[in-house]
């Protein structure tokens, strides 16, 4: 019997005596990935041992579920495994997060569905609500992933189910994605905070936007980012009554798109802010230049641009 430097035994154990870890957050295994691994195992065997712990005369997987599944499919009798001590519930979960943080990443929904349990177990251990940084450090996930997962965690179950149903479909048939729901939630959160009177029933708004996305009234995810811009109308000194009206129409079942709502409410204000911002940035830049260092041709060019600018400003004012 071999022992590794962490004191784990290395044994060939019966494939049939292994159970999947109920805490494994991973729910989606793509056939193509399994097929590649299957062919490799058929040719070369299982080259990297799986990790398991003993429980009730059987073994529970810690790492290597795909290798185990392929070995079963190939009707192999045994598989090399490192036998380790049974971890506690939090240790078990964190182990799996960390293993995958270093390798291939899970789907975001997979993480989001398991993260509340991690947070709850961490809360018991730390005796305080874990911060985003705590969660990232313990799980090995990037902070951005934890933040994005939280949008999915906060989704009502009915939408989590919709997303799960879509992820179950072949890639070509999937209409909704984790990215769609993250953009959707970000947008609605901003509306809720900045212009709550425009929102009404949040689930109804979600339903309408999902339906518009499926019908391609919302042609891409980026268009959802126009919604928070409308909600922040007051920041660009745009007419908030018009913004509320545009958002209310957007949250009704019709062919009114975020691009149309943006155009009708705040587009002009954002254009103005953008122009002013650019011009001010140019002035700041010019102020930094030493007048003695300028070439005559450049001075001439500047005067020409100023003349054209004055003419255009005169036309607009």
């Amino acid at each position, binding site marked *: 019997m071999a022992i590794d430097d962490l004191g784990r035994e290395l044994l060939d154990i019966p494939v049939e005596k292994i159970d*999947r870890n109920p805490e494994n957050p991973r*729910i*989606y*295994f*793509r*056939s*193509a990935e*399994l*097929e590649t691994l*299957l*062919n490799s195992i*058929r040719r070369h065997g299982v080259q990297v041992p799986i990790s398991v712990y003993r429980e009730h005369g059987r073994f529970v997987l810690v790492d290597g579920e795909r290798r185990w*599944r*392929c070995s*079963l*499919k*190939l*009707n*192999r009798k045994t598989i090399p495994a490192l036998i380790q001590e049974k971890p506690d519930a939090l240790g078990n979960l964190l182990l799996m997060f960390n293993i995958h943080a270093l390798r291939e990443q899970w789907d975001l929904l997979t993480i989001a569905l398991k993260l509340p349990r991690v947070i709850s177990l961490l809360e018991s251990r730390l005796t305080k609500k874990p911060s985003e940084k705590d969660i990232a450090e313990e799980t090995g996930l990037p902070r951005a992933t934890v933040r994005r997962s939280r949008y999915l965690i906060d989704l009502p179950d009915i939408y989590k189910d919709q997303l799960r149903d879509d*992820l*179950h*479909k*072949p890639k*070509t*048939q999937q209409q909704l994605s984790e990215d769609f729901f993250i953009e959707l939630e970000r947008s609605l959160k901003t509306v809720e905070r900045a212009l709550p009177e425009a929102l009404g029933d949040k689930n109804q708004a979600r339903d309408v936007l999902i339906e518009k996305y499926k019908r391609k009234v919302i042609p891409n995810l980026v268009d959802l980012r126009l919604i928070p811009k409308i909600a922040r109308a007051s920041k660009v000194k745009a007419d908030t009554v018009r913004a509320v009206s545009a958002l209310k129409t957007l949250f009704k079942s019709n062919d009114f798109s975020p691009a149309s709502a943006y155009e009708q409410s705040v587009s002009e204000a954002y254009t103005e802010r953008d122009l002013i911002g650019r011009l001010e940035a140019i002035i700041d830049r010019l102020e930094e230049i030493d007048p003695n260092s300028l070439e005559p041709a450049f001075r001439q060019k500047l005067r020409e641009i100023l003349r054209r600018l004055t003419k255009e400003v005169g036309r607009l004012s």
Partner: protein
Amino acid sequence: MNFRVLPSQLHATAEVVVRFFKEARGLSSFKVEEQVADSIAYRPTLQTTTPEYEAIWVEVNETPFLQSLDTVVLHCVTNCLPVKLYVAFPAGLSHTQYKENIDESRRKGLGALEVSNEKVTVIHEALLLSLTGVRLEDHKLFPARYRSILTTAENTFRNGDPAKACSLIYDEIEALSRKIARKIHKKGWWTHLASGAPALNWEKAPWANVMETIIDRANFSAFPPKLKRPLLMRVAALTDIRNDAGHKPRRTADLIKRNQELRTRFENAVDVLRDFADATRPLHI
């Protein structure tokens, strides 16, 4: 059903397929991801057996074909295993991927079941893998008039009726034998003519008797060079098994044995037809 290997997104597809086989084919008692035999490095997603002792294996997958099934097909063909292997997949593949996969699946003799909205569409049926391994002859080696019947016989064999396929070839050999007998009789190519020419009804006499008479009494020196006694003995040997399709199998092992025998008989009959037709070509019959 308790799946351990099948990805969760395909569980619903597998359930629909099981219902389909029960309702449309009367097949139930599907085993899930169980070993077929120690010697086979493969566990189908679903498996059951028909009352005719044919194994039905179903692989549930995201596409209609997987490269890893090549090894399984080869094993079944080589060992003459009476297996029909289907791949069930959810609808919605892109056209290119779909066509490539379907073509490959058909070539390998696999069945393709497309599952959409609780409904199964049979894209094409699975062939019995024990029969798909039959050796296919180059049709150009046969006179043109036999090529069509040869194609029919091969398809009949691969599509699951090996006894009928053998019979189709035997019919051709028998017809050719009777034509030769008539020709010999007409030309008087007999020996011991002093005791008279053989008096047999060349159309209705048993085929075995026709062959026996030719072998015993024909004057081989008058024959074309390739039409020799050993070849006629090979033809005569077929008359013993002409109507013997074998007993109805009572278990899988019997079915394997019967299919192996029929495969050998079919390949042998095709060889005899090729050599016999070639040898008698100069007789213009």
